[in-house]
């Protein structure tokens, strides 16, 4: 029971990050490999705000603002000039942005990891088992955030514009949709979600370093691909699935050391059976 809650809570973190990868891929048709590092920046934003103001709530708000603005800047400065360039050029740029963010963090904060305490959450007892309160908060907040995102996409004009651009950029332009604006909003939303991921991550593992984003970034990217990259529900399901498998595997002593290998094997297995991921669709080529 507590393993399941832990898994779902870790899964929420992966899902929030995976949403950033998948939305940017779906709409801008590029892999933003610097996305994991946005989480790291969010974590440092939390660290600094707590040091300055002492308030975890303020820290979360600041992290959301910082990450959102950072996402918009990365898109405007690094990726927008490459619109229409080869995917390889964009990928290399993304890796460059990733190293850049890590180096800046290292210059400011040093290479060593530093403790960050958002709060002491403890755990609640349900019958005989103890369930971590941080996990419950993560799970509940993650569910609220993801429902809000789903509603936003379904019900608002901007949400429908995002769906239209992801399906057919040219046709979307013919409808009067400003593709550049939609891409900017997508980066902003993806990065804001990353700031939430930073928060929940630090609630469970209260320390940060310049490479903090790497592992959750890779895992969440795996989750996005498992779910079908470009698919929003796919990212949510992929994230949850990966979180649960990771926690279950870690709770079984024989499997624990091989957990990461197990997760990537799952990726390979799913791609062998269904190359587009669980919910991914094969894009029909446009004439």
């Amino acid at each position, binding site marked *: 029971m507590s393993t399941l809650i832990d898994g779902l809570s870790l899964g929420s973190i992966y899902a929030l990050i995976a949403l950033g990868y998948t939305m940017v891929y779906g709409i801008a048709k590029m892999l933003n490999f610097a996305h994991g590092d946005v989480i790291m920046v969010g974590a440092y934003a939390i660290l600094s705000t707590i040091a300055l103001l002492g308030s975890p709530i303020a820290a979360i708000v600041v992290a959301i603002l910082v990450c959102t603005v950072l996402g918009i800047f990365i898109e405007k400065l690094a990726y927008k000039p490459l619109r229409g360039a080869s995917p390889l050029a964009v990928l290399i740029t993304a890796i460059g942005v990733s190293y850049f963010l890590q180096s800046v963090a290292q210059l400011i904060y040093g290479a060593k990891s530093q403790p960050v305490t958002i709060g002491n959450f403890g755990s609640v007892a349900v019958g005989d088992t103890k369930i971590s309160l941080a996990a419950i908060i993560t799970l509940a907040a993650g569910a609220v955030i993801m429902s809000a995102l789903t509603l936003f996409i379904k019900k608002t*004009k901007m949400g*429908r*514009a995002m*769906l*239209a651009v992801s*399906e*057919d950029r*040219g*046709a*979307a*332009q*013919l*409808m*009067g*949709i*400003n*593709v550049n604006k939609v891409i900017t909003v997508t980066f902003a939303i993806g990065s804001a979600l990353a700031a939430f991921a930073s928060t929940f991550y630090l609630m469970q593992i209260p320390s940060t370093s310049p490479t903090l984003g790497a592992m959750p970034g890779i895992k969440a990217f795996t989750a996005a691909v498992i779910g079908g990259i470009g698919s929003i529900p796919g990212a949510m399901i992929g994230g949850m699935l990966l979180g649960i498998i990771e926690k279950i595997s870690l709770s079984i002593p024989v499997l624990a050391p091989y957990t990461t290998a197990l997760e990537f094997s799952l990726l390979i297995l799913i791609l062998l059976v269904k190359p587009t991921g669980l919910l991914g*669709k094969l894009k*029909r080529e*446009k*004439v």
Partner: protein
Amino acid sequence: MLKIENLEVNYGMIKAIKGVSFEVNQGEVIALIGANGAGKTTILHTITGLVAAKAGKIEFEGQDLLKIPAHKIVGMGMAHVPEGRRIFQELTVYENLKLGAFIVNDKKRIEKNLEYVYAHFPRLKERKNQIAGTLSGGEQQMLAMGRALMSNPKIILMDEPSMGLSPILVSEIFQIIKEVSADGTTVLLVEQNAKKALAIADRAYVLETGNIALSGDAKELMNDENIKKAYLGE
């Protein structure tokens, strides 16, 4: 209303359009016909900004379209029903139509446009909650046309609306084009089906590998010996 002057378009090294000029006057139905690869789609894409021009001028109601980004053009009163329909396959019929009115902010206006579209295409009303990708080819064409009409266009550009449709549906689609024109919308119609297109057009231009080879009154072109041989299969 719409004036194209010495338009040239290249795809890399390929010269697709080599200096085309033509014009469309308010209220007209103009047919642009030509064989595969003549450059018809390229011209429409250049007009609505999806493809960049190399040289020339495109003027719509006195404004230079080549200086206007693609997403601003529909707001000027120009709708484009693209080749291959390009409806949003994963969205419903209703959501597609709503996207057609993306630039319309007045809710009442959207409702009225929706009624107008449903009146011309009752089939779309019956299927408004169906996922567009599951519509038949003819229904998808209707949706593409209905979606374009949702923006209250002054002029509508249509790229081969009869492509892949059965003869009965082709007649139905051409009937609707006539109705749209009768309601006051100017039409620029690109077609391979030269017979049908010339039958409803006022004037026509014949495009051959990037150049206008022939132009004139549609009825006269229909009786032109060269046209008969090359495009009407007679």
